[in-house]
């Protein structure tokens, strides 16, 4: 990691815009170099002290006016505190809010109401004449490659032009609006961003996105639309995915109006619920079963990806190297014939019961077996028959008492005709003297995984 990458990641961490992948990189950097951790802690302290210095006089005036407006009685103070704490409970949805003033006299109330009415009328008139100019979102972080028509390599700090179509080739990109709304586009996603109407609009053409939306004006909600549905958002956290003519919405906070375009039927999806808009399904909301994405780090897959010049033309031993690092659920790993393959992922596991599914199959010759470990504990094992190449699902259930754990799949194959020492040496694999067609044997086992998480009551 270069110094400039490091300072950029640190800033993203301090500003709360860092991605999971980058946070893991920083964590690794700190683990390698304790001095860097101390230095980052100093940066962390100064960063928050600088934030604390901001407009202390204004802040003091706000607190003071709150107290001045309240009566001296304890009951008023309690009401004030309760109002503040109710507000804190919704802080994520309302980034900028001032303390309400309780205990105002009725005269003040009516005067304020009259003033508010006048302002409202003025506001409506102004609104009818012009739409507010909303700046486009800014790239907060990028892992991998993302681009627009105008910018082939989007980097942090770039500001999207009106109508920009963002495509994420790999990794993910997080965009931030000036009001703090964060939109993360996943790998393979294409989405168009527009603000021309005076409201934020995102057209999700393919793939999926996560959104953490700051409170929007009721008459200018953020609208995320796909080819067949729209999610109308005034302040929430959600995930939206579009594939195979269906749109799936998960709401983690707040409420979203979810509307199918073909017949305008809609459903209100509350926090903790999800819904799907498709041609053949009713628009209803279902309770969520939280799914934990399982991030694998492939640690060992033999000679995968290596090529050799020895005894003949260059040939790839394996047709494709599995992606390193981030293999989310639905990803896959390959067992190398004759050598075990270890696939592991570190995941935070809050206390609860988990079910891990592994999808796998035998291919060609050899019998596949694999074991699943959570930390050091073996939670299950499977042995293939070597007779079928059909995909199969195996399910493993385990308990976690909390904390992060490594989930490891260790696979082996039996019956492969290739001696292990030959595979490891690599150079002996090619040429007329070698009796094996290695290319045909690359995928004795493929594993994909998904994990379901059921929290403790």
């Amino acid at each position, binding site marked *: 990691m270069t*110094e*400039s990458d490091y*300072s*950029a990641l*640190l*800033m993203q961490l301090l500003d*709360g815009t860092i991605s*999971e992948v980058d*946070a*893991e990189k920083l*964590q690794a950097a*700190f683990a390698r170099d304790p001095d860097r*951790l*101390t230095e*980052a*802690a100093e*940066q*962390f*302290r*100064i*960063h*928050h*002290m*600088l*934030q*604390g*210095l901001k407009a*202390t*006089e204004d*802040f*003091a005036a706000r*607190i*003071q006016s709150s*107290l001045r407006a309240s009566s001296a009685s304890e009951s008023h*103070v309690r009401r004030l*505190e309760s109002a*503040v*704490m109710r*507000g*804190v*409970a919704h*802080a*994520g949805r309302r*980034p*900028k*809010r001032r303390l309400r003033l309780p205990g105002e006299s009725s005269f003040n109330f009516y005067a304020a109401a009259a003033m508010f009415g006048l302002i409202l009328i003025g506001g409506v008139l102004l609104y009818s004449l012009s739409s507010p100019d909303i700046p486009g979102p*800014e790239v907060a972080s990028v892992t991998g490659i993302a681009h627009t028509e105008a910018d082939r390599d989007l*980097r*942090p*700090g*770039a*500001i999207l032009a009106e109508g920009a179509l963002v495509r994420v080739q790999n990794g993910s990109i997080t965009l931030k609006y000036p009001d*703090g709304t964060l939109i993360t586009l996943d790998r393979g996603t294409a989405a168009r961003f527009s603000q021309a109407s005076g409201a934020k609009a995102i057209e999700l053409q393919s793939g999926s996105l996560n959104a953490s939306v700051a409170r929007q004006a009721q008459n200018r909600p953020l609208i995320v639309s796909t080819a067949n549905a729209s999610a109308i958002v005034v302040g929430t956290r959600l995930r939206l995915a579009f594939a195979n003519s269906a749109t799936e919405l998960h709401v*983690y906070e707040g409420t979203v109006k979810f509307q199918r375009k073909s017949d305008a039927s809609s459903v209100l999806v509350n926090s903790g619920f999800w819904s799907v808009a498709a041609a053949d399904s009713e628009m209803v909301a279902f309770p969520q079963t*939280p799914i*934990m994405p399982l991030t694998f780090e492939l640690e060992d897959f033999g000679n995968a990806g290596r090529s050799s010049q020895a005894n003949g033309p260059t040939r790839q031993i394996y047709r494709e190297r599995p992606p390193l690092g981030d293999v989310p659920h639905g990803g896959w790993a390959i067992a190398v014939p004759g050598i075990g393959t270890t696939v592991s992922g570190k995941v*935070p596991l*809050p206390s609860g019961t988990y079910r891990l599914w592994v999808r796998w199959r035998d291919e060609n010759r050899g019998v596949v077996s694999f074991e699943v470990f959570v930390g050091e504990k073996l939670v299950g094992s499977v042995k293939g028959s070597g007779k079928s190449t059909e995909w199969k699902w195996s399910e493993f259930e385990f308990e976690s008492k909390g904390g*992060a754990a490594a989930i490891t799949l260790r696979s082996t194959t039996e019956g492969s005709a290739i001696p292990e020492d030959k595979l490891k040496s690599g150079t002996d694999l090619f040429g007329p003297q070698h009796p094996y067609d290695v290319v045909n044997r690359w995928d004795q086992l493929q594993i994909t995984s998904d994990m379901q998480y059921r*929290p403790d009551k």
Partner: protein
Amino acid sequence: MTGELDAAVESVKAGDREAFRVVVRETAALVRGYIGFFLSDKAAVDDVSQAVYLEIFKQIGRYERGTDFAAWVKAIARNHALAERRRRERKDQAHSNYVSQIRSILEAKALEIEERQPIQEQISRLEQCLAKLPERMQSVVKLHYHEDYTAGRIAQTLKSTTGAVLNILYRARMALSRCVKAEGVAP
């Protein structure tokens, strides 16, 4: 504790509500900076700070003159910040991640430093140190921390690059850290 703050605390205890403004003004940077150690969301820091001051106002009669007012305020701030964080963590349990892990690591380290160099001793020097930074560095820091400009917008404003702005912010924080530790020596 400054003489002005000391006098203001005593005035509030005696029933002078207006004096509370001085208490807030003199301690707001400390309270908001300290709460920031526990909560990453700026809006939450502001909201919790407001709740903290209401608590301070309610409890100020219990504060004993001559004891460390900043430490007393920090204890209230810490309790409120941790309660808010626990509430957020319960809500986001299924989404706990590397980001929260790494923030916890930094927070622990920052609190370890806090034992040796309390924030209340450094924050009063921070403004002086800020004024001693080179002009361009000072502008970048003020745009980011006082005007809420992102690095990208600062780069546009100053006709620079985002990377250069991030680098300036990084160096500025290091210079300020050295300066406040050295009791106001020019960075």
